């Protein structure tokens, strides 16, 4: 019985049909999705912090308005994704709890600090640039609500990417001090951005099922290569240097070969030893606790009005 259902499920996926919340799905598929989509949602929410750090110090009113809109988008993206995760039968409270207790992860990149304004540019250009490569691929993911959230997010994300590149271009073509800041930001964000795609396919625990079920459509290494090829040319155009002495054009494969990624650093940060791991979660817990009276008041107000005309 289970076997037959599982075969029908795989047939549907092979035929490029989407799986919807009420459809039968294997327990492991559901579990994998909850893990992946919620991790993605948590990344959007925690990702508001490194940039939010610069809102009050944005160098112009224009830059400030744009940055506020961008951070608001990140909140929106987090909510689209929580909404998609909840269709799998898990509540928002459980998801928040998993984040705050460390049971669920978020993208490692947000455990790095934003030291200068150029870092805001580097995040938009590199971090959002890497995220877009991944998200464009995920528009074709097999789970309907996840795919639809990705389509919506991709439409909005390219503004983020461009605002980051605009900041980097302006600084890279600015005063010597600004140029140094831009190069320094690139030096610090480049390698962590490459790590965003996750371990090499040969070392990734989650790749095989995810590919068979078409949750993931392309492998970590293929997506990373797409990102590198795009970013190298973009850096050249504004006169910045990618901090990789082994980077070179491979005429045979028509892509850039790049140096070795320091996976020790990656696992150190995943395991809680990054610059900002504690601060990010503490901030989230604090905001959540400080918002409790608002939620309580809203619930009390709704209960009070239950029998009245207003609720």
């Amino acid at each position, binding site marked *: 019985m289970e076997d037959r259902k599982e075969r029908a499920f795989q047939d549907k996926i092979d035929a490029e049909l989407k799986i919807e919340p009420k459809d039968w799905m294997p327990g492991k598929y559901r579990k994998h999705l909850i893990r992946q989509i919620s991790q993605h949602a948590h990344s959007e929410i925690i990702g508001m912090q490194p940039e939010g750090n610069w809102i009050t110090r944005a160098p112009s009113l224009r830059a400030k308005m744009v940055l506020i809109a961008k951070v608001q988008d990140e909140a929106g993206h987090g909510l689209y994704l929580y909404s998609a995760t909840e269709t799998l039968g898990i509540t928002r409270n459980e998801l928040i709890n998993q984040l705050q207790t460390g049971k669920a992860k978020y993208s490692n990149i947000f455990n790095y600090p934003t030291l200068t304004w150029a870092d805001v540019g580097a995040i938009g250009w590199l971090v959002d640039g890497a995220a877009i490569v991944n998200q464009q691929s995920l528009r074709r993911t097999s789970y309907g609500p996840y795919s*639809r959230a990705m389509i919506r997010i991709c439409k909005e994300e390219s503004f983020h990417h461009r605002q980051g590149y605009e900041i980097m271009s302006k600084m890279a073509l600015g005063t010597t001090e600004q140029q140094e800041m831009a190069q320094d930001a690139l030096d610090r964000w480049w390698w962590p951005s490459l790590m965003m795609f996750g371990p090499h396919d040969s070392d990734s625990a989650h790749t095989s099922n995810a590919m068979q079920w078409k949750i993931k459509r392309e492998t970590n290494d293929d997506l990373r290569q797409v990102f590198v090829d795009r970013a190298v040319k973009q850096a050249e155009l504004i006169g910045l240097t990618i901090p990789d002495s082994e980077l070179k054009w491979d005429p045979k494969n028509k892509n850039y070969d790049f140096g070795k990624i320091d996976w020790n650093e990656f696992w150190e940060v995943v395991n809680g030893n990054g610059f900002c791991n504690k601060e990010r979660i503490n901030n989230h817990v604090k905001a959540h606790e400080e918002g409790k009276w608002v939620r309580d008041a809203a619930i009390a107000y709704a209960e009070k009005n239950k029998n009245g005309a207003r609720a």
Partner: protein
Amino acid sequence: MRNDNLPVWEVFVQPKTGAHFEHCGSVHATDKEMALQNARELYTRRKEGSCIWVVKAEDIVSSNPNDSESFFDPADDKVYRYPTFFKVSKKVKGL
């Protein structure tokens, strides 16, 4: 600790006047007003809609996709509902 899982509302947006309303996701809210405001902030930040519906998720009734074969089979054998069922001479125009 009290359970502060706020009720889930499904959100439907009409992209422009005259168009169908389309489901686009959900929000959490304690009442209708908050549900509408949250839906506006979340799903129409870029003028994606001319009107929004919100409805409590628990009030939505859905057919079961696992039964869709039997549920929809009354439509299977009624090919005469399509214009192609009827043979008409090529000489006839405007039909």
